[in-house]
């Protein structure tokens, strides 16, 4: 456990002690390096994506970017390396990701800072601008959200503002690309001219004097620094940011300087009768107001009326919570209903056309039987069963991206805060949990926005209980096999159970394992609603889908191949149960006996599921289909009739699936799934039905929901919180999974589902 202190903000971040700059390799190709800096949610990442052609996470809630991304902007006179940073309300950090951004700003020699500000919220954005100008570096201001400012009747005199800031000011609309070309062309040209530092604000006399005294104190120690930068540091020290000394100097020097700085601060505190930090903050606001008076005019009397109207309902005292549950229920209902018709179709394509084509090729190559079995039973079965869930997952990603980009996500944190408070967490901690619905790994990193280390750790430890999209296929297959009339209910129940267990665990961890400590203050910005932008959403979905497909293409193929060998070793083994894989699985199986599924194949699927949950279904497919497809089928070439049937399946099958999905989407049809003739998946369903009782199936689902999500999540936990906590989470999850699966099994038996 890392308990290094960053007084007084309660931030503990194991990686902040030394800056690592992973873009060092790229730097060599770049002529200039700039950082994108600005308050949270102003469009920094949107800008970054435009400039570098990347697809980083964009959404309408503060705190998405929690680490830095770097990308190259090819340009004349030289390529520019652009670094996207987490959002900062001010250069006085409160949370791990803000700390990260600040540290880079002080320690990395950026050639210039691109200050992204929200043109529709200037009174708030310019405070940070003042702090950035104080740093003594060249600054370029991108007035983003220019469209919103225009719509809300905010008129900005760009030229006047540029003069006041001593920095180029460029209006931009990062998501519709208006003004972006100008920025893209101006930035490299400006860098090439060797720009001067921005104009640091002039503050009242007493503050200037105090700053000069501190400057005199530190100057001798920083012979290399330009004067403007020393001035900036002196001002920060006056504000009490003495932890910066520890990052810049040897411990002894830092300690000595710190004592003298504190002594001086004390003197000013007494003579000014307020903390110098607040005096400086006041001075900055004076400056901000001056800039606003000189360059901004607002015409509309009331602004953001749409947001006001929507919030009157969405965050309403009585409507807020029911609305949230309704939205979530709807999302999963639609996802499940739309997914079902496609499962059979995609499976059909893989087991039909793709399989036949592979068999033809293999036959043409005169491939030996074992190779045919490996390709067809191993790889094809694994990839096919995974990809059949892609339509449903795409829809899930789409909904989540839509919720994020509209601005609803921040409202979720607001609405859920009271409940989270009851388990000792913040409403903000609910956002990583929501992200976990897509994938647990980024969710673990997303906890960085929480101010306190204990909150971060608690949240990260319970994230694995939130059902990620990779678990959906398992629920679907089992629900279709055992509860065909209630598929959506079973799936929805799993998601709900995941959340309940996560929150209950947080409550327990809070009380028993992690020191309670004082509550961190709660503060959450609720950004104005935007009409979600389809390009943004499309990119989000594309990013997640391609991650999933890559996963299917690498992990699943890899696991399938390894598994195939383990199932066929010792070489030539007939009964998979006698194979190495079977023997190991059978050794684990007794531990699962009390849960109702003490079978070697269940144990085997769960074992391979440690690597990734997607693998559970594909492993089962491999075990059962391998048993069902006689070797003869691998040797024979597909007949003309078989080819015909497989080809027929392509077009008409897809049409049928589309029609069905559409009907369900529109609610014409109840979600009763017919295991149609084109659902080759029926093999798997039948295999499951003959092996499990409904009660055991339910217990299996509960176990899959709650045990370790995947290696990548464990690795993320290890990276963020250390090996001990990662190990703790592993043991904790398996224990919880076992106990609750046991309970589910016995409850189901009592209800007569035996």
């Amino acid at each position, binding site marked *: 456990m890392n308990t290094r202190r960053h007084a007084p903000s309660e931030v503990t971040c194991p990686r902040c002690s030394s800056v690592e700059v992973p873009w060092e390799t790229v730097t060599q190709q770049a002529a200039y390096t700039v950082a994108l800096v600005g308050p949270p949610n102003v469009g920094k990442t949107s800008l970054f994506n435009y400039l570098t052609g990347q697809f980083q996470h964009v959404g309408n809630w503060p705190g998405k970017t929690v680490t830095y991304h770097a990308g190259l902007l090819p340009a004349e006179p030289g390529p520019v390396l652009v670094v996207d940073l987490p959002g900062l309300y001010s250069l006085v950090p409160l949370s791990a990701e803000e700390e990260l951004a600040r540290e880079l700003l002080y320690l990395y020699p950026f050639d210039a800072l691109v200050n992204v500000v929200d043109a529709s919220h200037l009174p708030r954005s310019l405070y940070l601008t003042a702090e950035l100008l104080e740093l003594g570096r060249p600054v370029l201001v991108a007035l983003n959200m220019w469209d919103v400012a225009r719509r809300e009747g905010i008129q900005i005199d760009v030229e006047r503002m540029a003069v006041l800031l001593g920095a180029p000011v460029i209006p931009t609309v990062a998501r519709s690309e208006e003004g972006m070309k100008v920025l893209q062309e101006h930035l490299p040209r400006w860098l090439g001219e060797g720009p001067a530092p921005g104009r640091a604000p002039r503050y009242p006399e007493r503050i200037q004097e105090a700053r000069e005294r501190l400057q005199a104190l530190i100057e001798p120690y920083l012979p290399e620094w330009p004067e403007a930068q020393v001035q900036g540091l002196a001002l920060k020290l006056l504000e009490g940011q003495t932890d910066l000394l520890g990052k810049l100097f040897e411990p002894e020097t830092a300690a000595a300087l710190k004592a003298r700085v504190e002594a001086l601060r004390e003197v000013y505190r007494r003579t000014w009768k307020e903390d110098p930090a607040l005096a400086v903050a006041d001075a900055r606001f004076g400056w901000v107001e001056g800039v606003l008076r000189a360059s901004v005019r607002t015409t509309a009397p009331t602004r953001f009326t749409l947001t006001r109207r929507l*919030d009157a309902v969405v965050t309403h005292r009585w409507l807020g919570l029911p609305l949230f549950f309704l939205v979530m229920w709807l999302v999963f209902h639609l996802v499940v209903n739309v997914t079902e018709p496609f499962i059979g179709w995609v499976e059909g394509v893989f087991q039909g056309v793709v399989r036949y084509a592979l068999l033809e090729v293999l036959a043409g190559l005169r491939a030996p039987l074992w190779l045919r079995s490996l390709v067809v039973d191993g790889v094809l079965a694994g990839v096919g069963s995974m990809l059949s869930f892609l339509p449903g997952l795409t829809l899930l990603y789409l909904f989540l991206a839509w919720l994020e980009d509209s601005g609803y996500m921040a409202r979720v944190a607001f609405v859920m805060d009271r409940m989270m408070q009851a388990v000792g967490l913040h*409403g903000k901690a609910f956002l990583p949990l929501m992200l976990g619905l897509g994938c647990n790994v980024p969710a673990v990193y997303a906890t960085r926005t929480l101010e306190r280390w204990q909150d971060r750790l608690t949240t990260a430890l319970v994230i694995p209980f939130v059902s990620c999209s990779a678990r959906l296929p398992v629920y679907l297959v089992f629900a279709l096999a055992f509860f065909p009339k209630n598929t959506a209910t079973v799936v929805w129940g799993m998601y709900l159970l995941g959340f309940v267990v996560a929150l209950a665990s947080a409550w327990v961890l809070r009380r028993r394992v992690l020191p309670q400590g004082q509550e961190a203050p709660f503060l959450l910005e609720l950004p104005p609603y935007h009409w979600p932008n389809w390009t943004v959403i499309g990119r989000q979905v594309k990013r997640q889908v391609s991650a999933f497909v890559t996963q299917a293409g690498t992990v699943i193929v890899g696991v399938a191949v390894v598994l195939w060998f383990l199932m066929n070793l010792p070489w030539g083994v007939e009964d998979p149960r006698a194979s190495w894989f079977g023997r190991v699985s059978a050794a684990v199986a007794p531990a699962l006996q009390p849960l109702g599924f003490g079978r070697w194949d269940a144990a085997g699927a769960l074992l391979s599921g440690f690597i990734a949950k997607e693998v559970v279904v594909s492993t089962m497919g491999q075990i059962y289909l391998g048993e069902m497809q006689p070797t003869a089928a691998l040797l024979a070439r597909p007949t003309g009739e078989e080819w015909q049937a497989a080809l027929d399946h392509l077009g008409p099958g897809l049409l049928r699936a589309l029609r069905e999905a559409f009907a369900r989407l529109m609610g014409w049809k109840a979600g009763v799934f017919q295991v149609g003739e084109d659902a080759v998946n029926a093999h798997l369903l039948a295999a499951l039905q003959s092996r499990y009782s409904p009660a055991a199936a339910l217990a299996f689902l509960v176990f899959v929901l709650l045990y370790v999500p995947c290696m990548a999540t464990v690795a993320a936990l290890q990276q963020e919180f250390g090996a001990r906590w990662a190990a703790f989470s592993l043991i904790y999850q398996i224990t919880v999974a076992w106990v609750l699966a046991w309970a589910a099994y016995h409850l189901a038996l009592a209800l007569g589902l035996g």
Partner: protein
Amino acid sequence: MKGHNNGEFSLDEMPPGTWAEVVRVDGPLYWRRRLYALGFRPGVSVYVEQTAPLGDPVQYRVLDTWFALRRQEARRIRVRHVSRPSNP
């Protein structure tokens, strides 16, 4: 609203739909500084929007931005009731 010494309240006492002008912010320095940076500072008007389901937190509008604060935090912000905002 109960009357207090010279018309001062804490922000959490203000009912939804009212304007309040910040008089003073209490609490640890790092927290005061953060609230200042976001606009909760003396002389600035805050509009109380509405209470979250289950009574906490509360949604406020300050300088055209919406923030949610828990009552516990809002309690540390001393305000004066005003009928109209002094700043837009």
